[in-house]
């Protein structure tokens, strides 16, 4: 004891003796250790997907990964059920928009990471979907958005999961070329209902709830929303470079935005950035 008035009361002794049983410790061990490992892996990774995952909340992810198998099964069913309905509820073109929406949004990246943790068996199917995902309605620039790379980069963060399928960990070499070079043969394949279902590992339940409640005519809105994140990223970079006096980076970002999103949601902001660039160059 470390204090002068050290007389123990029976009540303090009772508090000290209040310890969990060994069985309690053993019961919680898998959950707590799995949670710690999952969180540590996510935070220890340096890729962009891991950062997105960390911002999503390491504890939330780790708690998901630490769920019991029945709970995982239930959540997987909740994810899969709306997907099973989608091919019936949406025409093929709307379905393609849905895939592009999910793939190119940051929420899609996070949801995919969570889905990997919940149900790794679905991952190979989604990889297949990536490799064959090219549609006539999908503009080529969107296929090269940064999220295409980050989605695959998120895979190593979950490779500590015991049930991870090897095929899911291995990078898919066909994904990038297929996404960058659409072919007429690949288009219809991506629009087929069974391929639609293969994207089920990516979106979150909330994504599907929102989409299921909106009429099919609102599919273009979903696509516009999908470009917003990428557009914001580009123009954020442009304005940050302008603020830092880095005109070269700013001009490159603006040009990139103009190339990728000529009629984008943030075209006015792009023009503003351009105007500032012009003003700055006159000032010099």
């Amino acid at each position, binding site marked *: 004891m470390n204090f002068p008035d050290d007389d123990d009361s029976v*009540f303090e002794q009772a508090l000290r003796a209040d*310890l969990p049983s060994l069985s309690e*410790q053993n019961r*919680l*061990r898998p959950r707590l250790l799995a*949670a710690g490992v999952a969180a540590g892996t996510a935070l220890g990774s340096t890729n962009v997907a891991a950062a997105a995952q960390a911002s999503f909340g390491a504890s939330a992810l780790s708690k998901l990964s*630490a769920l019991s198998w029945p709970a995982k099964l239930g959540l997987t069913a909740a994810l899969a059920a709306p997907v099973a309905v989608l091919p019936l509820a949406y025409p093929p073109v709307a379905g393609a928009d849905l895939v592009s929406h999910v793939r190119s949004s940051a929420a899609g990246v996070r949801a995919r990471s969570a889905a990997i943790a919940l149900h790794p068996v679905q991952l190979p199917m989604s990889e297949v979907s990536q490799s064959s995902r090219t549609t006539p309605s999908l503009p080529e620039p969107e296929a090269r958005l940064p999220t295409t790379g980050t989605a695959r980069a998120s895979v190593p963060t979950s490779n500590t999961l015991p049930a991870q399928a090897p095929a899911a960990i291995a990078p898919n070499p066909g994904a990038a070329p297929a996404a960058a070079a659409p072919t007429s043969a690949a288009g219809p394949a991506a629009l087929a209902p069974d391929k639609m279902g293969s994207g089920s590992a990516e979106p979150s339940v909330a994504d599907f709830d929102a989409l299921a409640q909106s009429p099919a005519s609102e599919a273009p809105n979903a696509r516009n929303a999908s470009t917003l994140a990428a557009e914001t990223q580009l123009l954020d970079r442009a304005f940050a470079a302008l603020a830092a006096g880095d005109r070269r980076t700013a001009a490159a970002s603006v040009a990139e935005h103009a190339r990728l999103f000529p009629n984008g949601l943030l075209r006015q902001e792009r023009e503003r950035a351009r105007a500032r660039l012009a003003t700055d160059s006159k000032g010099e």
Partner: protein
Amino acid sequence: MNAGALGRRALPRQLPSAEPQAPVLDLATVYEAYFRYVWRCLRSLGVRDSHLEDALQDVFIVVQRRLPEFDGRAAVRTWLYAIALRVARKYRERARREPTSLEAAREGDPELSAEQTSGDCEHESERLVLARRALSSLDDDKREIFVLARVEQMSAPEIANVLRIPLNTVYSRLRAARLAFEAEINRLRGTPRSTP
């Protein structure tokens, strides 16, 4: 075996003797050695039973995240209690914001349990219930210092380090906490307060 005994004995076994080297610890090792004491600490610090597993999980997530940064200058036990203390604060705050359920009301209401536990308190379980009610009547500052000193048996300098308060404040606050605890026990038992 009490917490202090285990903490002091386990540390040299886990840490290398050379000071400058980073301690070789992993989550499983920390879990095996300290789980029970973190569990007790969280409970004593006022984390509700219904939140206890989540709070434990939060503690070990932080441990996993911070392990690489742990330099071994503080004892593992002190470091862990510092984490547990902050997690417990978060959960206490959450419990205050949540709508009060019947279970929570019972956990937080000393009067309710006093009726159930009045008497001679001959049994350990009765003493524990009474002690927990008395603990819950302390304000947060007193409670934390009482738990760290009297339950977890940390030294005053360790407590000063964990709570980031001056050493003299540790002594004075602990004294006040003990008096308040004792008074509450006496009140719950229906006996007059003894002279300190």
